[in-house]
């Protein structure tokens, strides 16, 4: 038993992408046998991946270590064979932040696969759907765990192709095709600029490994160009205003189970942005300028996201704009941390912790709201809020889940959204009180958005016939709701055991580098 755990831990970084990838291509074969077998198989693969990720997370969070894995070498840990100046093989490097994002990605993917059991039952071409969902999981896990720039680009493209294809899954609806087209155009342009930046860095330093590049980077003119290209394109993929326009389209038109997977994909892009700023360019003081730009863009995201959300009349689109505002909060925390990275003030660390904590909170809250939106659509075949009403009478459980999610998104105590937003407010207040005031006001407007949905969809006279949704959908929502309540009631346990190691791993650039280059 101990041996198996040891093997899983040693080969864990490879297995977390190998298992879902293997499952993805086995799915079409299994679905020729039986639909039910395929669903069970997909959930089992997701569960196995989740298990390995959690095992790795336990090891990394308790020992505060970094797991590296060298593909195809004689030993997994042999990153730099003797006689080599740079690592030549593809290296996966998983530190606290990587595994933190990995947990988010695989948890949302697992919930999505459970939710799809009933939600997607009546659709055609489900073998392709599940294959793409597993590929999307592979892409996200690869993005967060890779330590190689070109490999990162490949996983970025896998993620965008899989998620665009999933957005376009309902092929007969024109709107979903339109959303998918916008998404794939923007993400492929973004990815090409990422590749351009990778090529610039490769041309200067002859290396693709992030740790090696971070060690050698000198901040020449071309490095500035690469930094701008990386920040702009990854910021677009993360949905920062004013490059967020694809996000409400894609979130709103995709099936709900796909939407929560894309939420995780967006956050994986945000992770990449953070990783590039803090680790790749972490030794250069000018990167603080990027922090100030991120603060400005974050304020724009929060304000424009929440005011646009008030205007919407479509259930999912409204939550999508609220998600834009939530992205603003994360970027605000990260931006404050980056702007003050070199002053090493205690509240800059708190800001980074708040931003990272808000990433997982946003994934759970917005994910739960999208699942409820999907449940309402499943029960009523209706998405416009004007035509909904009185759902609380017949969809009791979904209503409770909606209240939990809405309070959490709006940052009401004692939900988890409040704890992370409090961390962000207090640290931004130290930078400028105006920022904190605007952020708090926007949070109140978010509550107004949620009240609008609750008032028009769940209260009032019943305008549509509805019955509560099947059990598997309720289970999927219940998992997220339980996690929200747990994170809300015990924020300290989460912050101490997960968020703090992740933030420390982000700030300590030297550890990341020495893990590959061996104490250079």
């Amino acid at each position, binding site marked *: 038993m101990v041996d198996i755990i040891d093997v899983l831990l040693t080969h864990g970084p490879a297995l977390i992408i190998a298992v879902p990838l293997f499952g993805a291509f086995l799915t079409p074969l299994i679905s020729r046998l039986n639909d039910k077998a395929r669903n069970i198989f997909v959930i089992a693969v997701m569960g196995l991946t989740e298990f390995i990720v959690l095992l790795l997370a336990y090891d990394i969070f308790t020992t505060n270590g970094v797991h590296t894995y060298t593909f195809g070498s004689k030993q997994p840990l042999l990153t730099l064979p003797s006689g080599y100046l740079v690592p030549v093989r593809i290296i996966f490097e998983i530190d606290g932040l990587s595994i933190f994002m990995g947990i988010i990605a695989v948890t949302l993917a697992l919930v999505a696969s459970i939710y799809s059991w009933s939600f997607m039952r009546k659709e055609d071409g489900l073998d392709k759907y599940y294959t793409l969902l597993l590929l999307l999981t592979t892409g996200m896990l690869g993005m967060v765990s890779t330590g190689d720039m*070109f490999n990162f*680009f*490949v996983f970025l*493209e896998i993620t*965008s*192709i899989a998620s*665009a*294809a999933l957005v*376009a899954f309902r*092929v*007969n*609806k*024109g*709107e979903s*095709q*339109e*959303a*998918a*087209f*916008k998404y*794939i*155009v923007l993400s*492929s*342009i973004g990815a*090409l600029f990422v*590749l*351009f930046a990778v*090529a610039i860095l*490769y*041309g200067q330093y002859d290396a693709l490994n992030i740790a090696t590049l971070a060690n050698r980077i000198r901040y020449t003119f071309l490095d500035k160009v690469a930094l701008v290209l990386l920040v702009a394109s990854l910021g677009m993929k993360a949905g920062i205003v004013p490059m967020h326009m694809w996000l*409400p*389209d894609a979130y*709103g*038109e995709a099936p709900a189970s796909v939407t929560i997977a894309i939420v995780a994909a967006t956050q994986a892009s945000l992770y990449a942005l953070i990783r590039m700023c803090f680790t790749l360019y972490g030794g250069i003081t000018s990167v603080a300028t990027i922090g100030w730009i991120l603060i400005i863009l974050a304020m724009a995201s929060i304000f424009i996201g929440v005011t*646009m959300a008030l*205007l*919407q009349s479509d259930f999912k689109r409204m939550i999508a704009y609220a998600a834009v505002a939530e992205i603003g909060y994360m970027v605000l925390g990260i931006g404050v941390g980056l702007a003050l990275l070199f002053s090493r003030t205690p509240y800059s660390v708190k800001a980074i912790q708040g931003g990272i904590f808000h990433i997982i909170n946003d994934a759970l809250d917005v994910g739960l709201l999208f699942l409820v939106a999907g449940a309402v659509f499943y029960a009523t075949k209706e998405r416009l809020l004007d035509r909904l009403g009185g759902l609380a009478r017949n969809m009791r459980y979904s209503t409770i889940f909606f209240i939990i999610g809405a309070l959490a998104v709006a940052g009401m105590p004692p939900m988890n959204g409040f704890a992370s937003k409090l961390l962000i407010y207090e640290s931004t207040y130290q930078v400028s009180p105006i920022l904190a005031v605007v952020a708090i006001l926007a949070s109140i407007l978010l509550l107004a958005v949620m009240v609008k949905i609750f008032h028009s969809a769940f209260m009032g006279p019943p305008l549509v016939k509805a019955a509560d949704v099947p059990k598997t959908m309720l289970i999927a929502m219940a998992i997220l709701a339980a996690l929200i309540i747990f994170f809300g009631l015990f924020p300290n346990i989460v912050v101490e055991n997960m968020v703090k190691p992740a933030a420390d791993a982000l700030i300590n650039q030297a550890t990341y580098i020495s893990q590959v280059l061996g104490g250079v």
Partner: protein
Amino acid sequence: MIYNIPFIAVVLLILVGLATVIFKKNLIKIVIGITIIESGVNLFLITLGYRENSVAPIYTFAPSTKMVLPVPQALALTSIVIGVAVMALMLSIGVRIYRSYKTLDVRKMRRLRE
């Protein structure tokens, strides 16, 4: 100067591609614009590995031992493969859009806004 021409071509290709995506209103032309950007980036990768008077990095019957750098070529190849997948996906979505909108004009492809 002569060695900088490929880099100038790279920048021009990327700018032409971006201009195509921004100013052309036909869906197919937007896809073409993206492939132009992609070829610019690929050209950049290939140019990085170039050495004067050297041969392709193939050891089978190699005439001399001076070779160009193979890694950027591998990268460009991977990027081409990904580009094929992206283009196939974009064109398939384009077919479906034409089915439901009866047009390829992005100015009329605006059911989702605000």
